[in-house]
């Protein structure tokens, strides 16, 4: 009984790992796109990158809703207060970035005059008018937010591994049901 409440629920776990893949994929595509000369592949990848990012945006909203309803397992009582605080604010920052990065990309697409057509079918509304200077600024913002995300992700993964291999607690297993609970 007690063990169940120590884990995130199945939907939360599914969303976490699905989004982990999509976010890493989105970041990888973004990095590749930056250095790619214009080609049909680049245009295709740009579209996949946008569709992926918009999906991350919807899923992040869904995830916030699920978390609001289902809550999250408590952090181990043995954790020092500063670590608890870092965990709380680290996760808040992750959620914020999961919303802001796709949003800044969507804004950038509007400003570039190349609106997002979700999966090539559903046109998303333009959030701002076509404006080359604004597009450049949003590009910078989009990249800066992604750099910040990479740093926070490094902390997120590092902390999870530290908890699992050094602290030997259930922090990682509550999000990874295939691993044995300790």
């Amino acid at each position, binding site marked *: 009984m007690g063990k169940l409440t120590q884990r995130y629920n199945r939907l939360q776990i599914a969303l976490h790992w699905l989004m982990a893949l999509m976010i890493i994929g989105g970041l990888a595509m973004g990095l590749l796109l930056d250095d790619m000369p*214009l080609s049909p592949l680049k*245009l295709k990848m740009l*579209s996949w990158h946008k569709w992926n990012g918009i999906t991350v945006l919807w899923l992040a909203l869904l995830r916030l809703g699920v978390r609001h309803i289902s809550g999250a397992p408590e952090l181990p009582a043995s954790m020092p207060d500063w670590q608890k605080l870092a965990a709380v604010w680290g996760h808040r920052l992750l959620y914020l970035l999961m919303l802001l990065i796709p949003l800044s990309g969507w804004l950038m697409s509007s400003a*570039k*005059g190349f609106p997002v*057509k979700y999966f*090539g079918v559903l046109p998303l509304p333009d959030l701002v008018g076509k404006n080359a200077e604004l597009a450049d600024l949003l590009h910078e913002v989009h990249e800066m937010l992604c750099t910040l995300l990479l740093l926070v992700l490094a902390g997120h993964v590092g902390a999870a591994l530290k908890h699992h291999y050094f602290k030997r607690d259930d922090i990682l297993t509550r999000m990874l049901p295939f691993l044995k609970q300790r």
Partner: protein
Amino acid sequence: MNKLTAPLAALAIFASLPAHAAQQLDPAKSEIRFVAKQMNVPSEGRFRKFSANVNFDPARLAQSSVTVDIDIASIDLGSADNEAELKKKSWFNSAGFPGARFSASSFKAKGGNQYEVSGKLSIKGISRDITAPFTVQQNGGQMTVSGSVPLKRLAFNVGEGEWADTETVADEVVVKFRLNLVNTPTAVKK
């Protein structure tokens, strides 16, 4: 050239124009735009510079004619990178083929202010017969001719090699035109 001969010279040049240059293009009020679909997303552009030699008289269609010359390098896509790309060899090759031309002398009345023109469109050294519907609005001494025509970019080799892929950039490009024409005095005299 002194003050007297200048206007005379201008008159001589005017007189040497084709006998039926009945209208003059007002470039500020005219536009040639196009919409291409990229990954199924419509993307609009235009040509900043073009000229037209028009002699259009709805009452004398058989004697009417039009020639429009477009400066390819004046392409405006709202992005310097994309403009540089489209001037390249695989797209318009604006260095090798700086101008596109539409030339026609076959008109049909389609009722009301609707007409149809058939002629030759040359882009990138390739000529194709095209037919474009258009409407005419008379407004005092001015005439506005507007319409749109779907073209196939690959018929003109616009987008070669990897860019022949129509999955990323669709074959169909819709060209929209609006020409504001000022009737010249010679036309009034006729």
